[in-house]
């Protein structure tokens, strides 16, 4: 449910930046969302579509979301591996549970595209 406030934050950042770059119309917003983050892509899309209509700057913009897999790094044997089942943080080579999460918690605005006037 916090996806609405996340999208509000994203559009706020884009709006501020667009003013600086004299962009009058935003066509695309790209986010990177890790699979361990608690933001659901579907809910982000839903929130984006609902909020974008409140501002002419975004009215026709599309949202692109790049999802990132969860990657762990074993502190014991130093092997990096993908965590397929997102709740088992165990090294596939040495069974250690001392795992550092090196990818999958991303939640950032990568870029946006727009047109100057």
């Amino acid at each position, binding site marked *: 449910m916090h996806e609405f406030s996340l999208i509000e934050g994203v559009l706020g*950042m884009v709006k501020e930046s667009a003013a600086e770059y004299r*962009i009058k119309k935003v066509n695309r917003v790209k986010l990177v969302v890790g699979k361990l983050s608690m933001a659901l892509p579907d809910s982000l899309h839903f929130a984006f579509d609902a909020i974008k209509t409140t501002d002419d700057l975004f009215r026709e913009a599309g949202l692109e979301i790049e999802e990132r897999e969860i990657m762990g790094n074993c502190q014991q044997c130093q092997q990096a591996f993908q965590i397929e089942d997102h*709740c088992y943080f165990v090294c596939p080579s040495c069974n250690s549970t001392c795992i550092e999460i090196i990818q999958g918690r991303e939640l950032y605005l990568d870029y946006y*595209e727009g047109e100057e006037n």
Partner: protein
Amino acid sequence: MVQVRMETNILGANELLARKNRRVFTRQGMLVVNLMSSPGSGKTTLLEKSIEHLHDQLRLGVIEGDLYTDQDARRIEQKGVRVVQINTEGACHLDAGMVGRAFESLANENLDLLFIENVGNLVCPAEFDLGEDFKAVVISTAEGNDKPLKYPLIFREARAILLNKVDLLPFTDFSVERFRRDLDQINPQAPVFLVSGRTGEGIKDWIEWLLEEVKIKRADA
């Protein structure tokens, strides 16, 4: 067409405020615990029980997060502890800005330990750093065994995990053994406390552990 690269953390504004809170809290040498759970797991009752054990030894404060009501805050107030209520007006989590503002009225209380009772929710609060020293997650036996696997982030990030309502174990299908096994995969470092807010069972172990953390924090300040 222009492309503007941002590479900006969506939670950046919150993280900035969380860092500011953490500086303020650390300067006071006060331990701050962010207490999280789903609704109805017994956070407030556990907090009441914890306060009974702690309030003659420590100066305590509580920040109560709730969607709309101040019922929980009033329950805590009756225990003689300073409480500040935050009503999120529908928002499903506390953020660092809300906590920073709420703390202003506790800033001169010279507290040893501050509990932040988050909004009952296992999803959204996990993303928001409030500036706390650590997160403690409460789950109750009546909620079933699947919670750690369904909400791994919150269990992964917790420094302490409390299994509440152990007095109800004979009446549920909850398996403590399976619970421990799942947590071994998700978060093997965190101590697990089996407690009952209603009967007081197991509370002492949790309190002793907490007192040790308060001591460590004070020594570091």
